[in-house]
């Protein structure tokens, strides 16, 4: 009981410093349409600097769609329309005039299935830097990126080897290293551990905890325990009767898990559906 009290106190402190929070990305009235289908309905969400924000919810609730909107990957799908504002670094990037390619360097993405390029480990890291006009010491960049992704010790002797020979967990960490090699400010992760075994998942979670010191992270996950372990904020998504995805609740993770305001959140978290 006393610990709960402490937590509440802690939260209040959090609320006090709320005004000073620096938001890196703010979604305002975000709507996504696939053709005629209204997939995401009016989402408002902020990503705080150097914090992990988890997006949870059952399948098909639009959480991945929201995530992909942030670095404008959605527009790669035909007939997709995103309305509303995505304010990043003070600029609304949901605007055809803003170049999506430069946005994607600053807002990197890690995907559900590890997808390293079928090239060497070294090239996997160096390619992104090269095409983005990096002119520093490439070896150094590769080493630093791999170190930050906690992969250096495992691969330092086989950088020329194909990335496809790594294990699934190593591949995913390589993908994270590849993402941070181009020095993004935000990293979006779309269920990065869902294709991995528990041990590899644990390492990814540790890594995310490390990474938030330098980056702002948004992570979509199916795994509520994972969200509870690694995130600072959680937003809960759900589909309503006409299959529109929308955000039900958003808050500090501990708060949302222990004290959900919405009955649906409570039911989902306690495993009654989902």
């Amino acid at each position, binding site marked *: 009981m006393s610990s709960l009290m402490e937590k509440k106190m802690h939260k209040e402190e959090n609320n006090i410093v709320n005004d000073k929070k620096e938001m890196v990305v703010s979604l305002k009235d975000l709507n996504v349409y696939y053709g005629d289908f209204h997939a995401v309905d009016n989402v408002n969400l902020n990503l705080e600097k150097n914090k992990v924000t988890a997006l949870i919810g059952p399948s098909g609730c639009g959480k991945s769609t929201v995530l992909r909107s942030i670095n404008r990957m959605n527009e790669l799908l035909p007939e997709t329309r995103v309305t509303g504002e995505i304010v990043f670094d003070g600029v609304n990037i949901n605007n055809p005039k803003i170049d999506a*390619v430069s946005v994607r360097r*600053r807002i990197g993405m890690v995907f559900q299935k590890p997808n390293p390029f*079928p090239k060497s480990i070294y090239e996997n890291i160096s390619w992104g830097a090269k*095409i983005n006009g990096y002119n520093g010491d490439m070896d150094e960049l590769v080493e630093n990126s791999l170190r930050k992704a906690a992969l250096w010790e495992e691969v330092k002797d086989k950088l020329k080897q194909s990335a496809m020979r790594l294990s699934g967990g190593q591949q995913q960490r390589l993908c994270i290293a590849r*993402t941070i090699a181009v020095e993004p400010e935000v990293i979006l992760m779309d269920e990065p551990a869902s294709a991995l075994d528990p041990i590899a998942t644990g390492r990814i979670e540790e890594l995310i905890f490390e990474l938030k010191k330098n980056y702002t992270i948004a992570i979509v996950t199916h795994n509520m325990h994972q969200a509870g372990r690694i995130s600072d904020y959680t937003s809960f998504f759900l589909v309503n009767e006409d299959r529109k995805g929308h955000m039900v609740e958003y808050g500090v993770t501990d708060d949302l898990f222990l004290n959900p305001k919405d009955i649906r959140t409570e039911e989902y978290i306690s495993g009654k559906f989902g």
Partner: protein
Amino acid sequence: MSNFNDNIKKRYTVSNLWNIIFTFATIVAVFMLFLLLMNIINGAFGYVAIQNTIEPTEIISSGNLDELDESQLIEILESNLSKGLIRRYNFENPLIDRSKTEIMSLVFERIIEPRVVKSWNLKESILGRNAIIEYTGREYPNAHLQFRSWLNPQFLIGSQASVPELAGIRTAILGSMMIILLTIAFAFPIGVGAAIYLKEYATDNKFTRFIQVNIYNLSGVPSIIYGLLGLAVFVRGMEPFTSGAMFGYGDPSTANGRTILAAGMTLALLILPIIIINAQEALRAVPQTMRHAGYGIGATKWQTIWSHVLPHSMDRIMTGTILAVSRAIGETAPIVVIGASTFISVDPSNIFSKFTTLPIQIYQWTSRPQPEFRNVAAAAILVLLVMLLTMNGFAIFTRNKISKNRRSN
């Protein structure tokens, strides 16, 4: 008791029946190919009866020409050949100046003139050898029998001739090779380019779907239609270009657009739809996650395509191209329509030359009245098959190397 009736036996019977049917289909296909090959080989080898037009004994009683000296041989040439021919020989290189072996070979080729008077195919030669010997002894007492491979070095390097045993296919091989190289040079970049546009850049709308359907239709259009198109557009319409007159090439007598360039462009047109379709399929097989990986770190479309999508699909694109080019090598109808020369003994010297191709030669030889030309045609078919096999083998080797690099580097 149970709602399941596991008629295992019946299910296995049906399964085995299908197995037998599929095995039988494979056997039939292999047998047909075997028959085809046998049929060709049957024609390309066999006994021939060779008879001299003028026996050496009619020139010198002993029959041994080696006993004659050079001036006597020249005399024999002059008395047996037309004045015009002698003049031509003297013009090329005066007979007096030529060596004895040269004069001797002229006498042999022009006067003694050994000719195949009767030929047999391989089957007859193996099974009815005695009958052949007996037949030759009765019908051609002066002839001698010889086992001849119609496919021989002389055949490969010789040019076209009106006598079957002297006919060669060098001109046709050169023509085919040059046309195929041009076809690849035109069709590969355009085809792959169009596929990249349609698959990677174009948005999926009514217009692109309309184009897509038309490409599929075009791949099924009979090749002779392409020949007509090539005739109208490349031979007639673009004559100054295809005849080389624009660049100062080609002599006026042949400058009518019926050139290797026109043929190469026509065949490129013919295989373009096939290459586009195959390349699109190859691009479609590249997992979407690979493109996302590229975009996710701020690559442009082209950077992603060039560094990841194309290397990943190149082996499949090449397979499609190989199949298309193999088809082009064997095409006859469009080449006939745009006007290949059927009898040409001059090698094509550049892309603005007149030409003939292997299939044209084969077609032309099989329609000749002399039965020996069937043997020549069979030998040419073997050459065509070997050429196809070599090209495909090389391309498959390259392709495997690419995909191996892709997997292991």
